[in-house]
């Protein structure tokens, strides 16, 4: 059997190096075409009439005036009369017209009568949710009552929460759809080129083989772009009705309202510890919403397996756009509640929280030794022991400085992936798989693995991705892509080499097993003088090129080239202006492991991006709902605030890459570094000002209110 194992640490020429992403030039020059950029010949533009109410029943729909408007080519009713609508902005009728203004005018001519129904759009105040909460069964671990009553136990009571935030994809959701007879071609903006192809077929009840999905670039997904959605079906139906290509992209407003968000969580926590800091008990009463379906409990206590626990969670149903997977679903919320409570406990015990974490590190289970090392590394990079002070910062002046910390985890096992590698007689190498590059660097890592294995430069690999006719490869969600595609690529490349070696060996007078591919040559391992250039070796092939597959997991699952389970420690340094409540993040240190790293540069980039996203949801981002009207008040980029360049501090990313990690194989990285920023920044704020600002985002009004309540104003 061919040897698929990863090269020994320290022997690679490409894997683990710092390689710029291959599609960077295309993106910065505008050469990269996104779905949003597409213009097909004769293409129509679709617009959607959306429900203005948070909760309503459709009484009647009259599209006649819209249909008569010159330039309108088709009208498709998405939700019929008598249907109940559960959130503002839900799709009611879609219109295709010759241009966007005509489509918009047509939408304005549609008459829909609604019967308004009672709504609930805010969930933080439990006393106001009426009958919209569904408590889950209480969960008990160990003997929490005894733990809290144990003599000498110190009990911390706290309240913590995180607001609903949206995904804010730079490229909004949408598709271009085009029929040719019974065959549909869709250009989606998606994280799942293959999966949405199958979903289109199911939704439209046509054979899966009749649907082609094509996408080369996507402007962000973060978990929100894995389904066809109502607007996807609508654009396919409009294209069918008109026989023309139709484009339907969401405007910013619906993008913010209906195209995904991260559930909130609010929690009243009691934490028990011995006087020496040993954590013994956890009690939480929490609630959250992810839209009309309510919201499940995030993992709490997060990472820390506190021996005695009692947990009660209530899912609150609200009339607002539904939650979707948001980068590390549920982890940032669970991490925030847990790590803030632990930090508050440390303050109550007058301990350095780093010492408290290290004292309890065994509670983190099998990763505890690594967490210990990562915390010490982060502390070194932050100069924690030198710079940390007890709450609050005692230095004079209105601006207070503080440090905070957090740890996190994620899975990240690679998904199923098939890769085909073709080597032609002229030496060209083509690699095909239906994956997609979300901007994470998937193209680049695939090329690196293939090039490393074949002994070629990355530029020698021609990549075909983003087409559901290519060998299947999973959706990009859950940090599963890099493991899947790197494993299938490695296997395919090794399989290809095996065939090439068989063709080249006779000329070199050695057996194929004695050959290696390196530096653009095929040569004998024992005698490098016995060599052929790559081109010469390929020239030994006949008319039929080598075309082989590699699969993750393949028919031979062993050796396992991938693994699961990563973690990291983060520390933040902040300044808080106690006169204005404005927080400035000065620096974040992120120490992160993720097994064998294929491209150090894009791996670090994932961490940078995650920290920036983390600053956003910690300080600025929040879906603002108005209970009176049931509407979202900030579905824009003006009052839905994101961190800009000037809000981004010094970011220190340290990838944990010891030999042990490299032996674990490849593990995904997209989600984990975005888990901790909320907790570590908020803990740093508390360290600075001495009082807890309970809920994210940490806006000036809340900071000033906390200072006032704490008598610190």
């Amino acid at each position: 059997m061919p040897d698929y194992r990863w090269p020994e640490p320290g022997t690679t020429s490409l894997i683990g190096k710092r390689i710029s992403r291959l599609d960077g030039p295309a993106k910065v020059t505008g050469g990269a075409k996104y779905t949003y950029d597409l213009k097909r010949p004769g293409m129509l533009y679709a617009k959607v009439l959306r429900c203005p109410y948070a909760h309503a029943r459709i009484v009647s729909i009259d599209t006649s005036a819209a249909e008569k408007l010159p330039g309108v080519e088709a009208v498709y009713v998405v939700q019929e009369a008598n249907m109940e609508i559960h959130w503002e902005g839900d799709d009611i009728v879609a219109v295709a017209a010759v241009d966007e203004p005509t489509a918009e005018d047509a939408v304005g001519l549609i008459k829909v009568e609604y019967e308004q129904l009672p709504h609930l759009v805010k969930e933080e105040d439990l006393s106001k949710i009426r009958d919209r909460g569904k408590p889950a069964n209480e969960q008990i671990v160990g003997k929490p009552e005894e733990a809290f009553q144990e003599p000498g136990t110190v009990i911390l009571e706290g309240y913590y929460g995180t607001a609903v935030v949206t995904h804010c994809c730079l490229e909004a959701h949408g598709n271009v759809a085009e029929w040719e007879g019974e065959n549909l071609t869709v250009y989606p903006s998606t994280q799942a080129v293959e999966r949405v192809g199958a979903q289109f077929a199911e939704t439209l009840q046509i054979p899966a083989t009749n649907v082609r999905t094509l996408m080369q670039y996507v402007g962000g997904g973060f978990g929100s772009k894995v389904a066809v959605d109502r607007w996807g079906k609508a654009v396919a139906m409009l294209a069918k009705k008109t026989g023309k290509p139709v484009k339907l992209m969401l405007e910013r407003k619906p993008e913010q309202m209906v195209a995904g968000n991260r559930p909130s969580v609010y929690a009243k926590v009691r934490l028990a510890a011995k006087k020496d800091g040993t954590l013994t008990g956890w009690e939480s009463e929490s609630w959250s919403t992810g839209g009309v379906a309510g919201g499940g409990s995030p993992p709490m206590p997060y990472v820390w397996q506190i021996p005695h626990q009692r947990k009660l969670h209530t899912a609150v149903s609200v009339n607002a756009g539904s939650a979707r997977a948001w980068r590390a679903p549920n982890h940032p919320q669970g991490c925030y509640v847990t790590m803030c409570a632990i930090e508050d406990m440390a303050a109550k015990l007058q301990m350095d929280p780093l010492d408290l974490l290290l004292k309890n590190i065994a509670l983190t289970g099998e990763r505890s030794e690594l967490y210990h090392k990562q915390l010490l590394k982060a502390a070194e990079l932050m100069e924690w022991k030198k710079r940390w002070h007890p709450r609050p910062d005692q230095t004079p002046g209105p601006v207070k400085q503080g440090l905070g910390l957090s740890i996190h985890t994620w899975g990240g096992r690679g998904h199923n992936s098939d890769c085909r590698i073709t080597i032609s007689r002229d030496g060209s190498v083509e690699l095909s798989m239906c994956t997609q590059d979300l901007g994470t660097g998937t193209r680049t890592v695939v090329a690196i693995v293939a090039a490393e294995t074949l002994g070629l430069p990355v530029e020698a690999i021609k990549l075909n991705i983003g087409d559901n006719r290519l060998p299947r490869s999973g959706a990009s969600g859950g940090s599963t892509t890099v493991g899947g595609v790197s494993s299938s690529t490695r296997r395919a490349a090794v399989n290809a080499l095996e065939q090439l070696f068989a063709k080249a060996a006779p000329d070199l007078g050695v057996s194929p097993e004695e050959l290696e591919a390196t530096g653009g040559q095929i040569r004998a391992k024992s005698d490098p003088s016995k060599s052929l250039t790559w081109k010469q070796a390929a020239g030994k092939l006949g008319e039929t090129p080598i075309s082989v597959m590699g699969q993750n997991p393949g028919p031979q699952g062993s050796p396992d080239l991938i693994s699961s389970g990563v973690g990291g420690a983060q520390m933040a340094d902040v300044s808080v202006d106690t006169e204005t409540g404005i927080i400035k993040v000065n620096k974040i240190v992120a120490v992160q492991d993720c097994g064998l790293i294929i491209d150090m540069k894009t791996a670090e980039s994932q961490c940078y991006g995650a920290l920036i996203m983390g600053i956003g949801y910690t300080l600025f981002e929040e879906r603002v709902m108005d209970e009176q009207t049931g509407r979202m008040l900030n579905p824009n980029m003006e009052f839905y605030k994101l961190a800009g360049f000037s809000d981004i501090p010094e970011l220190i990313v340290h990838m944990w890459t010891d030999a042990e990690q490299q032996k674990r194989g490849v593990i995904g990285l997209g989600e984990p570094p975005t888990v901790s920023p909320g907790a570590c920044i908020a803990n740093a704020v508390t360290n600075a000002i001495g009082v807890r600002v309970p809920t994210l985002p940490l806006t000036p009004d809340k900071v000033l209110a906390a200072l006032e309540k704490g008598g610190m104003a």
Partner: protein
Amino acid sequence: MRSFEYASPTTKEQAAALLGKSWEDAAILAGGTDLIAAMKDNVVYAKRVVDIKGIKDLHNLTATAAGLRIGALVTLEELQAHPRIGQEFVGIAQAAAGVTSPQIRNRGTVGGDLCQRPRCWYYRSGYGLLARDKNGKPLVPDGENRYHAILGNGGPAYFVNPSSLAPVLIALGAKVRLYSASGPREVPLEQFFVSPRNDNDRENVLKPNELLTEIVVPAGVRRTATYEVRQKESLDWPLAAASVSLEMIGDRVTKARVVLGHVAPVPWRAPEAEKELAGKTINADTALAAGKAAVGEARPLSQNAYKIQLARVAVKRALLKAALGGA
């Protein structure tokens, strides 16, 4: 965005002739950073859009012994970069720099900054300038009012004036020149802004057939400063802002003007703070006392008490910045 007729006059006379009797007849397009977005959101509609960028003399920025004459089409970036403004009217440069987006500073104009519509999210969601539901109930008092007014907020208007430049220009005693087919008129900027009393009122005295052509800032030896409290360093609306203009003899204030931004439906002149400062030396204590005086009449809505503190601090820091050259 609904369809509209586009006109691009090259003189102010032509422009005035293209304007109409009602707001729906015509809208004036300068930098477009507000108008285009408002039209896309169906908050503003006009049958005709009159693009005034082709009117050359509205781009002029002249500094003479008499003061500044700022054409309505001067961009925020041009204003900020002008050497005389950086030296003698530093509070103006600071206010322009507060628009922390190079794109908007390069595109946005002085006239547009003064005439932009309020950012109240109820208004921008289609509930009208006075933010009332279909039964006439005001939405702001019981609603999401964290960014709304703390002064002059007895109703019916609760929004805040969004202009970055108005507070400092008012502090400097600026006038605006308006032009219509019946000729020019000049209005002190302080009187240009009004708090609407009913649905037909607007937030300034500009008539549908008028355009703002020029801002005139009188010369004088003053120390000026603007301090904005913004949550983000990148582009973000101030939560509160203050501009001050001080006439001084030695280190004593002889005459002060203190104007708050983003706290009331109009740029808010604070005579109490001005009185407080007369004859004083600016230091942390006198600056804070003036800050307190400036918000003495402030009344919070349900969610915006914090803005009183922010306005107080903005005044304090603007004064210290003006007097001492630091925050």
